């Protein structure tokens, strides 16, 4: 059973709210400079969704008027649902035509790459975007698939048994990045 995140003794904050905010700024600046219009941000549920919203706001402040926003639920596309049981279909909302756009997938932590693989499969059922890019707040290494991010906010060196958790105001009541020791959180 996963231990409650805050009570666990193996938890340490590695980035504070201000550092997380600065990382989102950096992401937005690079995306604005490098991804031509028309762009759509697609947050991967759950924490990719508020992150995509924050990046989209910043892009608009930088004068980008072409940015569409959506969210993608990938739970049914996971490759481990054989072991975990089938989840309910979550909300996917893609309120724009993908064909013309460059899609930027947004997620909080990039680890094995399996979530991104699932997101690409899910995406292919909704249309054929012009290009797909990947932005993550934290890259912690440990890839099990040939997947690489295009935009990274923070890089963390984590041992295989460690977990990196992003907490966001919108979902968790605070901003921060945490390191969790193996065994402190069973997930």
């Amino acid at each position: 059973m996963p231990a409650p995140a805050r009570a666990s003794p193996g938890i340490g904050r590695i980035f504070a709210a201000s550092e997380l905010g600065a990382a989102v700024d950096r992401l937005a600046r690079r995306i604005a400079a490098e991804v031509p219009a028309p762009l759509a941000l697609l947050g991967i549920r759950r924490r990719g969704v508020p992150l995509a919203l924050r990046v989209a706001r910043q892009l608009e402040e930088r004068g980008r008027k072409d940015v569409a926003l959506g969210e993608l639920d990938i739970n049914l596309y996971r490759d481990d649902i054989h072991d975990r049981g089938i989840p309910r279909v979550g909300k996917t909302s893609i309120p724009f035509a993908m064909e013309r756009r460059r899609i930027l997938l947004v997620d909080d932590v990039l680890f094995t790459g399996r979530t991104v693989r699932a997101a690409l499969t899910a995406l292919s059922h909704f249309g054929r975007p012009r290009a797909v890019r990947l932005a993550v707040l934290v890259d912690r290494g440990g890839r099990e698939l040939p997947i690489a991010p295009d935009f990274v906010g923070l890089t963390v060196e984590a041992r295989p048994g460690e977990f990196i958790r992003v907490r966001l105001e919108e979902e968790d009541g605070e901003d921060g990045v945490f390191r969790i020791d193996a065994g402190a959180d069973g997930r």
Partner: protein
Amino acid sequence: MRHLLRIRGLPVGQARAILDEAPRYLDVADQPVPRTPALLGRTVVLLFREPSTRTRSSFQLAAKRLSAEPLAFASASSSLSKGETFLDTARTLAAMAPDIIVTRSRESGIPELLAREIPTASVVNAGDGISEHPTQALLDAFTIRRHRGRVRGLTVAIIGDLLHSRVFRSNALLLTMLGARVRCAGPPTLMPPGLERLGVEPRPSVEEALRGADAVMVLRIQHERMHDSFIPSRREYFHEFGLTEERLRPTRDAIVLHPGPLNRAVEISSAVADGPRSVILEQVRNGVAVRMAVLAEIARGRPRGRRRRD
């Protein structure tokens, strides 16, 4: 949910869960690739021992859109028509280790028999004899809910051949369970006993059943199940019980449902069937989504990846 054998005995929370999930599967139908991997790698056997086009196609499409492997085991093209006993068929099926068996039969009680004989599979009743047709009731309730926003507190009139109708029985059970008032009308020879026990109010005429109704469900005259003369003639039936624009007019804005296939100018006029209040084709579309929700709900309760290979 392990099986969906009947509405009778289905917990109301389970019925609501299916109705709540179904809109998501309507969205799947709108995707450019209308497919979701909820049943990836699962086998769904369609064991149909009675002619059926729409229900079978609907389940087949539902299984495909969930990425399952549907396997048709229909009566016309199988050993079922070569004298194999039903239990031998069931055992053959069991050896194929299907995850879900969707069954349609002329006889009542087959779903329970299958669930007992093939303990490793989940069973979905797609209509058994004159007993029940639970997924039809679920898709009807879903269609009513989409038009009226709810089922509780509505008045639903069911018109026609109630005696031979598994659609009627499942609908009466489900609609009353969900808090609707159900009234009915039809030829006295086609009224089953025990309507009050079902919670259904019989009315002496179609006009009276329709008064104040929010939805009207017209049932098919099932010639294939009638071995006696229950009705004098089709024309007579239409005159007395057929749903026409004239009969529908006083109901304000009631929607019209029919499980299909239609007998035009017998139980329903073409003007009503093709008119603005008819939701008959929506029922077909909703049926696929509701069946997807049922299959997914069952699959959720079946752990996999640990299938015995010994």
